[in-house]
């Protein structure tokens, strides 16, 4: 089962692949085309160097006609590779089965940004569509030359170019290329990452011609996971590899006073690596490393108590100095409306720090003894992570080959990049390949968190309850105290321990400006972090960054305004939403869920179990999602069961409806956990959420029993990112359903058992 992997193996297998292709060239060269010998007129024998302006850097067609797409992004189990293969097959006019998409590997793909911002299809797919169309254009042009007709006279069926009306006059892609490379230049926009875009003069197909895009092809990685035959990053083993474990401070902000290396003398071969504040142990076996990390005696400086008491968190945010403020929307006379208002409604909502808490603590393997230096990482952005390794080791750009291997889950910026930098530092220090993996408490307490926040909502109403002005201001920790891309040592724990200069970001974001009250002000303020470096409360992106926070507040506040105006929450949204795409979604979700119209809470509920339904609606960078949540609240236990969700979803053109539906299920499943259970606990010295008991997430008995999805396909509209959009309205929909069931507004997340019990008791008193 265990595959021994070394860079040599990789280089060899790749060379082998090429050699194999070469062998096939010989055979293919002998095949006849329409009775003539084919000539290898197109392309080159040698692959042009990896570059965004080279067609070969994105698409290869083998002598067997098989197509490989090289995609500089990864897939975290949503079928991105399948969708990209569909797009490429569609534009090339080959069957889906012929295409394989290889993901994030700096040796085979250019930096398209990794997984980030739900851009895999929206940006990455957009680029691949144009590039595949250009590949087809080049091939058809060459076919026209060889067949002696105009390109317009040709058609392509499953990679075979033939003359329209004369199907016997034909040549295949494989015959044209004969295993060679296109050697064809693209026009590149000079950008890397999500914004990378390359194309040629070819125009992609109209959606009306689609045969592959829009079909429900299954994922290709599922069998390997279900039968235990595929590797995770944790399974990578390299000859001579040793095991590293990083020692984090016992309390946040403390420094090493002394290390007693003799305390691990009993573990043969175990050694201490210390560079400034970076401390780790390295041992020959994983078990030895685990024990060495456990047994190593370290004396730390006294705790500077960098955090506030947890009960004071939101007051701290309210009072804290603002380091950046921005209004994303400021339309109409907001202040004037508040002055002349018949009534002003105000509410404040609070959202806690939450942990990425991936299924396993991060793992990475780095081998600095090889050339290039090798990195195996579960990071979402292997290209950037490889750059980070280059920088932390002070190597020349291009000296690290970074290969993404599926990791134990990732939903933004988790601890994967930190593990990669730690493994790099350790491999360099001991001169051997090093595997680093944390223990559970490191995965939960020391991974990046989503930012805690306070949201102040105000509305100016006229005498009839019409909203004249709407104001939504967030005050929060920065959303990316460490960047979601790990290319800079300053954004990684190892870099911070080594004392690199910091350059934190200050950024948050408002809900999208979709409601059409006459005056609107949507903005945010960012406050400084508690601890500027090596903080277990450092913030970064967690699935739909800041979405659950702002919609917990805004969707509840809109429901409050609806009740004030004597409107049902669906009616209210339809009153203030004007775009057809928005309105269609609200109507679709109301219809599919059997929405019961009412103003204010469900007063008819009796007994111990109270039932309610609530709606949430969000636009997230082009992806629109309406959600109805149906909950059952147990008055005695305080337990909420978010039993059923109905989701209507419009992300423009749908590439794969099955993949999309499952992606929505996962979003809702995780978002339910976050709104009902998740809150990072801490005291003045340290994060105290360290495992699944102190950081509980949703479990089987409490998971939703149904998530009903209505997909609205807009094939004439560009495909938008759907990776995270359906997370966004869950928090507000659940809180609104809770209010409907109980008549109690929850101003603070999560809606945990204790908090619900307290809120219900308070309402009764």
């Amino acid at each position, binding site marked *: *089962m*265990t595959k021994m992997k070394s860079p040599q193996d990789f280089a060899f297998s790749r060379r082998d692949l090429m050699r194999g292709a070469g062998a096939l060239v010989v055979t293919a060269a002998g095949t006849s085309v329409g009775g003539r010998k084919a000539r290898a007129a197109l392309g080159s024998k040698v692959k042009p160097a990896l570059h965004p302006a080279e067609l070969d850097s994105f698409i290869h067609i083998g002598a067997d006609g098989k197509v490989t797409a090289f995609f500089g992004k990864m897939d*975290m*189990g*949503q079928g991105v590779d399948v969708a990209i293969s569909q797009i490429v097959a569609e534009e090339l006019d080959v069957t889906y089965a012929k295409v394989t998409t290889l993901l994030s590997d700096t040796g085979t793909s250019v930096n398209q940004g990794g997984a980030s911002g739900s851009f895999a299809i929206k940006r990455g797919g957009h680029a691949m569509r144009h590039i595949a169309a250009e590949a087809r254009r080049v091939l058809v042009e060459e076919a026209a030359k060889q067949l002696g007709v105009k390109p317009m006279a040709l058609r392509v069926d499953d990679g075979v170019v033939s003359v329209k009306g004369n199907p016997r006059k034909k040549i295949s892609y494989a015959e044209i290329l004969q295993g060679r490379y296109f050697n064809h230049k693209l026009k590149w926009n000079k950008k890397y990452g999500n914004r990378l875009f390359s194309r040629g003069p070819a125009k992609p197909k109209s959606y009306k011609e689609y045969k592959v895009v829009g079909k429900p092809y299954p*994922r290709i*990685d*599922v*069998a390997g*996971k*279900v*039968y*235990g*035959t595929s*590797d*995770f990053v*944790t*399974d990578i083993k390299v000859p001579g590899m040793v095991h590293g474990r990083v020692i984090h401070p016992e309390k946040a902000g403390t420094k090493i006073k002394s290390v007693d290396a003799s305390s691990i003398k*009993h*573990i043969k071969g175990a050694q201490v690596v210390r560079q400034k504040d970076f401390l780790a142990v390295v041992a020959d*076996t*994983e*078990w030895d490393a685990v*024990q060495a990390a456990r047994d190593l005696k370290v004396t730390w400086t006294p705790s500077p108590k960098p955090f506030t008491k947890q009960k004071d968190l939101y007051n701290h945010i309210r009072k804290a100095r603002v380091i950046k403020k921005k209004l994303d929307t400021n339309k109409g006379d907001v202040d004037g409306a508040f002055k002349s208002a018949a009534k002003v409604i105000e509410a404040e909502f609070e959202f806690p720090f939450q942990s990425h*808490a*991936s*299924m*396993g*603590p991060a793992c990475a393997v780095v081998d600095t003894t090889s050339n290039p230096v090798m990195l195996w990482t579960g990071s979402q952005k292997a290209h950037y992570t490889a750059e980070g390794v280059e920088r932390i080791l002070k190597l020349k750009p291009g000296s690290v080959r970074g290969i993404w291997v*599926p*990791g*134990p*889950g*990732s939903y933004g910026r988790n601890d994967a990049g930190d593990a990669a930098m730690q493994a790099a530092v350790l491999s360099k220090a001991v001169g051997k390949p090093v595997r680093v993996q944390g*223990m*559970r408490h490191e995965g939960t307490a020391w991974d990046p968190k989503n930012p805690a926040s306070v949201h102040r909502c105000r509305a100016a109403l006229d005498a009839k309850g019409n909203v004249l002005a709407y104001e939504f201001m967030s005050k929060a920790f920065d959303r990316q105290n460490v960047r979601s891309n790990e290319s800079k040592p300053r954004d990684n724990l190892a870099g911070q321990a080594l004392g690199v200069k910091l350059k934190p970001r200050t950024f948050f974001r408002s809900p999208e400006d979709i409601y059409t009250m006459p005056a609107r002000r949507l903005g945010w303020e960012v406050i400084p972090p508690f601890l500027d470096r090596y903080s277990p409360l450092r913030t970064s992106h967690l699935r739909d960054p800041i979405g659950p926070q702002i919609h917990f507040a805004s969707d509840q506040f809109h429901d409050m305004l609806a009740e004030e105006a004597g409107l049902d929450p669906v009616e209210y949204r339809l009153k203030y939403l004007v775009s057809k795409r928005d309105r269609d979604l609200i109507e679709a979700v109301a219809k599919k869920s059997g929405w019961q119209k009412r103003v204010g809470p469900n007063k008819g509920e009796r007994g111990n179990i109270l039932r309610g339904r609530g709606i949430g609606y969000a636009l997230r960078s082009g992806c629109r999602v309406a959600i109805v949540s149906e909950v059952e609240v147990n008055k005695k236990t305080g337990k909420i069961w978010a039993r059923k969700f109905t989701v209507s979803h419009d992300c423009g053109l749908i590439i794969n409806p*099955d993949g999309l539906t*499952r992606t929505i*299920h*996962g*979003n*809702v*499943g*995780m*978002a*339910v*956990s976050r709104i009902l259970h998740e809150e990072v606990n801490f005291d003045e010295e340290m994060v105290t959420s360290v*495992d*699944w*008991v102190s950081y509980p*997430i*949703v*479990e*089987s*008995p409490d*998971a*939703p*029993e*149904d*998530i009903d999805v209505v997909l609205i396909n807009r094939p004439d509209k560009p495909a938008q990112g759907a990776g995270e959009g359906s997370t966004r309205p869950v928090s507000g929909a659940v809180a609104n359903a809770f209010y409907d069931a109980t008549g109690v507004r929850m101003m603070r997340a999560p809606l945990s058992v204790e908090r619900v019990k307290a809120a219900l008791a308070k309402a009764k008193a």
Partner: protein
Amino acid sequence: MAKPQRMRLNVNGGHHIITVDPDMPLLYALRNDIGLNNPHFGCGLAQCGACTVHVNGKATRSCVTPVGSVKGKKIVTLTGLGTPEKPHPVQKAFLDEQVPQCGYCVNGWIMTAAEMLNKNPKLNDRQIREGLSGLKCRCGTHLAIHRAVKRAAKAMAS
């Protein structure tokens, strides 16, 4: 750290001689000494199930099971449970329902559900939901998990 011991483990029907600290969790022996990567390290605290294997037919969390305690017992991992050619009904159902996202948790769900249904496939929805508590899936694939286990239960009961 106890003295390394030479021991024989019976895993997936094969015998493996290893020399290890008997106090070391079985998980590390399977992954590193025998080279079976199916059980994963999720928590090391018996809180998530990612490391589950069957010991004498019982779903067992290998992260807290000393390797010395399973000498002479029958250990089965995910690859021993079934193969693409001869899948366990639970594996087949997980494939049909396309359950895993990241898939790091899936070993735990399959091994636990397999033991549960091997004992008694005639379980109602409530019993299935409750029977799988104590396992974690961070990706939130519970809906698909429940569908798959119900599907497998049906197949096994008939």
